[in-house]
C-alpha cells in the first residue's frame, strides 16, 4: 500500500481544488471585463451551506495567497460569529495573515456594509450577495431577465421604482446602473454605502454562492443609483443622532435598544472605524457628494 506523505494537509491549499479555483478566477476576469454583468460559475461545495457567504468565500479563496492579509466584516462587525468562523477558516486553509484593521487588509470580505474607511487601489472588497438578480422582483423567469439585461430593457425596473415611490415615498433601496449599461444589485448594502461604489479606487467583487453568480465593479467605474428627475436617491438619515461612545455623526449609525426595550442609543456600526476614532487615530473616510452634503449640514 502506497502512503501519500507528500501532502500533510487533508485538503488542498485554500480548501478548493486548483482546477475549480482556476475556473472561478476566469469567471472573475470575465466579470471584471463586463462591469455589472452576472457571470454563472460552478459554486463548489463548501463546509458552509450555500447562502451563508459561500459566494464571497469562493472568491476570497480563489484570489488569496500566503502574502495576503484577510479581513471579514459581518454588518460592520469583525467579531460576529459568522465573521469569526469564516476568518479562521480562511486563515487555516490559506495560511494567510488576518486583521481587524481595514487599512492593513488586502482582501476584505463583507456582508451588508462597505467599511467606513476609504479603500485604496491595493485592496479588494468581496461582497456576500444573497440575490444577484435585481430584475427578479419584477420578472420570475431567468430566461427573460437575461434577455432583458441583454437588450437593456429595464422598463419594469423603472416601474417598480415608481411604485416604490408611490407606496413608500422612498427610492433609495433600488438597484444601481453600472457603467451606463447593466442594472446591478449592489448586494444588500446600505444606501449609505452605495455611492462609495462609484468611481472607487478598490476592486469590488460580488459572489452569490446559492445563485451561482459572480459579478464585479472594477476600480474607477461609474455606478449610479436609479433615480427620477424630481425624486432623488439619498443616503440614510439619522436625524442628527450621534454615536454614544465617540460622538461621531457622519458615519453609518446603528440603533441599539436598552434593556427596557423602549429607549435606545446610536453607535457607529463599523467596529474598526469606531475603535480607530476612540484611539484618536481617525482614518480617511470616503468622499462622495452625499457625505460632503451631510458633513456640511451637521457642521452648520
Amino acid at each position, binding site marked *: 500500500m502506497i502512503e501519500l506523505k507528500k501532502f500533510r494537509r487533508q485538503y488542498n491549499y485554500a480548501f478548493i481544488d486548483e482546477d475549480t479555483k482556476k475556473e472561478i478566477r476566469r469567471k472573475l476576469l470575465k466579470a471584471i471585463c463586463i462591469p455589472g454583468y452576472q457571470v454563472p460559475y460552478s459554486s463548489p461545495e463548501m463546509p458552509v451551506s450555500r447562502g451563508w457567504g459561500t459566494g464571497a468565500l469562493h472568491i476570497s479563496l480563489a484570489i488569496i495567497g500566503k502574502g495576503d492579509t484577510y479581513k471579514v466584516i459581518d454588518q460592520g462587525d469583525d467579531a460576529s460569529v459568522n465573521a469569526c468562523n469564516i476568518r479562521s477558516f480562511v486563515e487555516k486553509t490559506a495560511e494567510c495573515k488576518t486583521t481587524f484593521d481595514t487599512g492593513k487588509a488586502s482582501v476584505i470580505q463583507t456582508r451588508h456594509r462597505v467599511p467606513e474607511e476609504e479603500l485604496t487601489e491595493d485592496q479588494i472588497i468581496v461582497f456576500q450577495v444573497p440575490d444577484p438578480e435585481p430584475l427578479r422582483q419584477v420578472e420570475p423567469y431567468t430566461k427573460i431577465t437575461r434577455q432583458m439585461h441583454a437588450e437593456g430593457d429595464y422598463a419594469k425596473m423603472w416601474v417598480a421604482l415608481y411604485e416604490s415611490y408611490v407606496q413608500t415615498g422612498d427610492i433609495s433601496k433600488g438597484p444601481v446602473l453600472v457603467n451606463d449599461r447593466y442594472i446591478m444589485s449592489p448586494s444588500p448594502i446600505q444606501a449609505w454605502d452605495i455611492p462609495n461604489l462609484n468611481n472607487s479606487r478598490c476592486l469590488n467583487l460580488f459572489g452569490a454562492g446559492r445563485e451561482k453568480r459572480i459579478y464585479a465593479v472594477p476600480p474607477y467605474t461609474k455606478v449610479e443609483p436609479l433615480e*427620477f428627475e424630481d425624486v432623488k436617491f439619498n443616503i440614510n438619515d439619522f436625524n442628527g443622532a450621534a454615536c454614544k461612545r465617540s460622538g461621531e455623526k457622519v458615519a453609518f449609525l446603528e440603533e441599539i435598544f436598552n434593556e427596557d426595550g423602549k429607549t435606545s442609543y446610536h453607535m457607529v456600526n463599523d467596529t474598526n472605524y469606531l475603535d480607530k476614532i476612540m484611539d484618536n487615530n481617525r482614518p480617511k473616510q470616503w468622499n462622495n457628494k452625499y457625505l460632503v452634503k451631510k458633513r456640511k449640514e451637521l457642521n452648520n
Partner: protein
Amino acid sequence: MEEGKDWLLKVEGLTKIYGNPSEDTVSRTGPLFNSNICPKTGAVVACADINLTLHSGEVLGIVGESGSGKSTLVKLLYFDQESTSGAAYLNDYEDGEQDVLKISNQQKRHLKNHKMGMVYQNPRDGLNFRFSSGGNIAEKLLMADNYHVGQIREKATALLTSTEVPVARMDESPKNFSGGMQQRVQISKAIANNPPLLFLDEVTTGLDVSVQAKVLDMIRRLQKDMGISMIVVSHDLSVIRMLTDRTMVMKNGRIVEQGLTDQILQDPQHSYTQLLVSSLL
C-alpha cells in the same frame, strides 16, 4: 388620398406561417380552398400576402371571422410575433426606408414605446396586474424617456380622467377593476406617449353593451382630439361602422375585399362579405 408623404404605415406582402411550409403552401390555401391549412405539410397560414397602406389620421378597420388572421396581422405589426416574410415601413422612422420588421429587438421596443400603442382584447395582455394602474401608464411614459415622477403622475391623472377612470383609484392594481374599467386603463396606457399609430384588437368584445358604447365613444373622441391613425380589428361590423373610414375584409388569412366602410357595408362584392353584412343584426 394621393400616394406620397401622406402615408403613415405601409405593409408589403406580410406573411405568417406556423409549422413547416412547402413551396406551394401559400398557393394551396386561402379563401378559394376555404382553408388555411396546407394539405401537404399541415402548416397553418395565419395570414399571407397582406398589402396595406395607412394614411395619417385615418382609421382602418379589419373585419373577418375568428381565425381569419386579423389579430395575427396587428400582432405582427406591433412586433408581438415575428413574421415569416414581408415588410413594413413607418413614415417617420428612417424616412420610411427601413423595413421595421427587420430591425433589432431593442430598436423595435424603442419604436413601440415612442410611436405605437396597442389595446388588446384581454386587458391582461396589455396591462401588468402586479403594478398599479398609474404604474402601468408610467411604464409607457418612462420608456418614452420621461423620468419626472411629478409629470408622470400629472399625465396619468389627465389620461385616467379623459377615459373616465376614477383618479382616486390610480394607485390600485387594475385587477380590482371591472372589465370595462380595465379596458379604459389599457387605452390610457396605449395613448400615454401620444402615439401616431394605435392598434385596437377586439377592444369591446366581452363588454356589456352600455360599456361598449362608452368605450367606443371615448375612442372616437380621442381619435378626433389627437388625430391618431388607427387599425381597428373586430368581428363586429357595428364597431367597424362606428369607428372606421376604410375597411378590409379578411378570410382564411387573405384580404378578400377592401374599400370605404360605407361602400363595403352597403354594396358588398365578395360572397363572404355579403354573408357578413346580411348576418348583421
